[in-house]
């Protein structure tokens, strides 16, 4: 197939006009933009659900909403943040940056890319529509344990199941595309061990996604069959086992949490090397650390299930394997710190978010280690301590990674610098409020406050009030981010091709003009 006919059509030149540009686009930048705005919209929808939760928990007792609705809020908040915010935002960044970082014109399978995106609004439309149905939406927690989600579920659970199926198809197709792009579209000379770390992190993430999203599809299919067709996967009456649900779910679920953090590792590495004006310390060990995290993440899932009554051998195996993951994670943290050591650091907004990422993610890692200790987890499980743990790794972890990446690459996307003063303000508001919100959760958790209840005992009142205040501040502060982004799209100081001092050395994306041309590299660049 080496004889090639020249095809000329509008797809090769500028973007199409009007709405069809976005509906029919196969351009990686357009699709990246769609993903990012979609995730931004979902952040505010999921965020308002969190505000409802925190308003109810501001004081003990039931004030604003009924417990049934409270359950729907926690469930949908979790589902939307995981599948509708963090994952699509990372895919959006992958779409924008991977072709630019590896010297490709676009993704390898651009039409599939369009399908991957346009499945998402459908999936979330279906999910959100259940909230307006008479029986209400899913109310069984984002982990949808059987039999809460089967025997005792509202009948709208079928809509939930299919929306998860559609999200799964979207993720799998998206990941196939990303892996194919990375393996097949690299510029000549860019060997695997010369790939930018963000590309590496996404290669591993996409592999994890293809491995575990089908398992998620499998578990919701089993639910569908149990609910509607009389099978007994999770029904002990027929020889099944509700604990089987948890095993299959967490076999997906634990790799999933790494799916939500690995791309942030990649972003943080780029930002820290840029603003420390030093190449990343220990590139090779970074790659190996991410790979071993990915492999280990398949054998730790039952640390979410220490209290279900597993045999002792199981408890011990999963305890040690979980602790083992802390080693490669620690390697990464030390490498970031070593990169900053003796660097000439400047503190632009992306760097502030990246440093906060390293510090606060580490707190989340430490609470994870505490949870990994079986006898201790018997105490902590299903308390706010777990909530504190995963919010530390997900909000100042994954979300800060995304925000840092947005600030870092925004001038490359829009051609304009963002407003640095507002950026700094946004950082400090976010940094203070995130800690105000999630740090006290450790205390109430250790003191025994259970998660997922609309009410609590009086002794937790003061901390909960602080948490609620912090969370509202956090929510409002994010409006500032939207303002800053829109402002930079419309106007601002013109950005140079290399945007950040000295970054021209650090990656192909900084050799392109700002804003980057609609089709990134139409002729292969040479990498030395």
């Amino acid at each position, binding site marked *: 197939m080496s004889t090639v006919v020249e095809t000329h059509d509008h797809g090769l030149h500028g973007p199409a006009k009007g709405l069809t540009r976005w509906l029919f686009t196969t351009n990686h930048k357009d699709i990246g933009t769609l993903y990012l705005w979609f995730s931004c919209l979902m952040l505010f929808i999921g965020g308002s659900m969190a505000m409802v939760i925190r308003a109810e928990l501001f004081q003990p007792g039931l004030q604003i909403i009924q417990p049934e609705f409270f359950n729907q809020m926690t469930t949908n908040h979790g589902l939307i943040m995981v599948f509708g915010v963090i994952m699509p935002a990372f895919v959006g960044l992958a779409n924008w940056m991977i072709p630019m970082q590896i010297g490709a014109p676009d993704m390898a399978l651009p039409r599939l890319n369009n399908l991957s995106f346009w499945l998402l609004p459908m999936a979330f439309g279906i999910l959100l529509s259940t909230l307006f149905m008479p029986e209400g939406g899913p109310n069984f927690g984002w982990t949808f344990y059987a039999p809460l989600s089967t025997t005792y579920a509202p009948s709208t659970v079928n809509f939930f199941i299919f929306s998860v199926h559609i999200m799964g198809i979207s993720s799998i197709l998206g990941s196939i595309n990303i892996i194919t792009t990375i393996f097949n579209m690299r510029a000549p000379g860019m060997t695997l061990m010369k790939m930018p770390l963000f590309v590496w992190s996404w290669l591993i993430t996409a592999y994890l996604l293809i491995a575990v999203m089908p398992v998620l599809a499998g578990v919701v299919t089993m639910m569908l069959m149990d609910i509607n067709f009389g099978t007994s996967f999770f029904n002990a009456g027929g020889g099944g*086992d509700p604990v089987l649900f948890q095993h299959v779910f967490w076999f997906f679920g634990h790799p999933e949490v790494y799916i939500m953090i690995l791309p942030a590792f990649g972003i943080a590495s780029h930002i820290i090397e840029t603003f420390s004006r030093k190449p990343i310390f220990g590139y090779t060990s970074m790659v190996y650390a991410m790979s071993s995290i990915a492999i280990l993440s398949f054998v730790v899932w039952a640390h979410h299930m220490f209290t279900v009554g597993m045999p002792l051998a199981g408890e011990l195996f999963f305890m040690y394997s979980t602790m083992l993951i802390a080693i490669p994670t620690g390697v990464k943290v030390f490498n970031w710190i070593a990169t900053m050591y003796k660097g000439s650091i400047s503190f632009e907004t992306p760097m502030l978010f990246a440093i906060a990422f390293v510090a606060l993610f580490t707190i989340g890692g430490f609470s994870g280690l505490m949870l990994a200790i079986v006898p201790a987890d018997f105490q902590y499980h299903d308390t706010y301590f777990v909530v504190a743990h995963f919010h530390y790794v997900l909000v100042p972890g994954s979300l800060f990674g995304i925000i840092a990446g947005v600030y870092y690459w925004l001038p490359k996307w829009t051609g304009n610098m963002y407003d640095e003063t507002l950026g700094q303000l946004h950082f400090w508001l976010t940094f203070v409020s995130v800690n105000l919100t999630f740090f006290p959760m450790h205390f109430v958790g250790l003191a025994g406050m259970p998660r997922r209840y609309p009410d609590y005992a009086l002794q937790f009142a003061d901390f909960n009030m602080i948490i609620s205040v912090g969370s509202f501040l956090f929510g409002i502060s994010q409006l500032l981010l939207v303002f800053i982004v829109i402002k930079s799209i419309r106007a601002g100081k013109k950005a140079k091709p290399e945007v950040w001092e000295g970054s021209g050395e650090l990656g192909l994306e900084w050799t392109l003009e700002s804003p980057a041309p609609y089709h990134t590299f139409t002729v292969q660049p040479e990498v030395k």
Partner: protein
Amino acid sequence: MSEQEYYIPNGTYWPIVGSIGISTLFVGFANLMHDVSWGGSVMALGFVIVVFMMFGWLGQVVNESVSGTYNNQVDRSFRWGMSWFIFSEVMFFAAFFGALFYARALSVPWLGGADNNIFTPELWSGFSATWNQVAFSTPGTVLQSGVEMSVPTTLVDTWGLPALNTALLLLSGVTLTFAHHALRAGHRDQIIGWMVATIALGLAFLGFQIAEYGHAYHDGLKLTSGIYGSTFYMLTGFHGFHVTVGAIMLTVILYRVQKGHFDDKNHFAFEGVAWYWHFVDVVWLGLFIFVYWL
């Protein structure tokens, strides 16, 4: 366009048609489960849209490929894409195999009092947990924790239809490989012969599988036969679905062979479908061993 330049496909409306089709299908299905009167028709409509999209999208790709628009890099992208897609399918089956192993090796014995469940014999005296007829003693329909369960009289005989089907499917893998060799050697007539044989073997497999389902169902082995019936029908059912899809794809490839779409070097579509067919074959071996035999 030289080798250093890239191929970028033009925009298309097929993906969004696909997204609408898939969503319509699922919304219809969910409403069907809720006994909404129009659920079934909407689901059918969604299915029609998906099929329409498949024809349109793949037809466009075939036209572009035949007219020589693609370069080697596109060919490689398709190969990577298909391999990882098959990997995702492997993981889907892995979930159901995992459920089978877990239930069989752990949860059913635990129900019967194995390990430290010392109270089981006290609470449910006379209860013995067996894999095939979990929790039931007499054939027929029993009420089990409020749910009707069907207890089979006999189970499918491993060395009857399943063994025959194993032979058929393995043979079809061989004939497909012969077709591939013929394609490489450029013998169009032989390719067609071997392809027809492969498809015929696949269809025979499906026919026997349906016959086997008929017997099993008649003997009371149903989806509602506890965890045994659940894993039996879900694993074999999804496999049968994949064989059906594979047979349809092989038929399309046969048609394209007749049209002269492939030559000895340029035949990704043929190979992609062949990989898929071998994957379906391997899954069946797993089924034969773990569902029918052991």
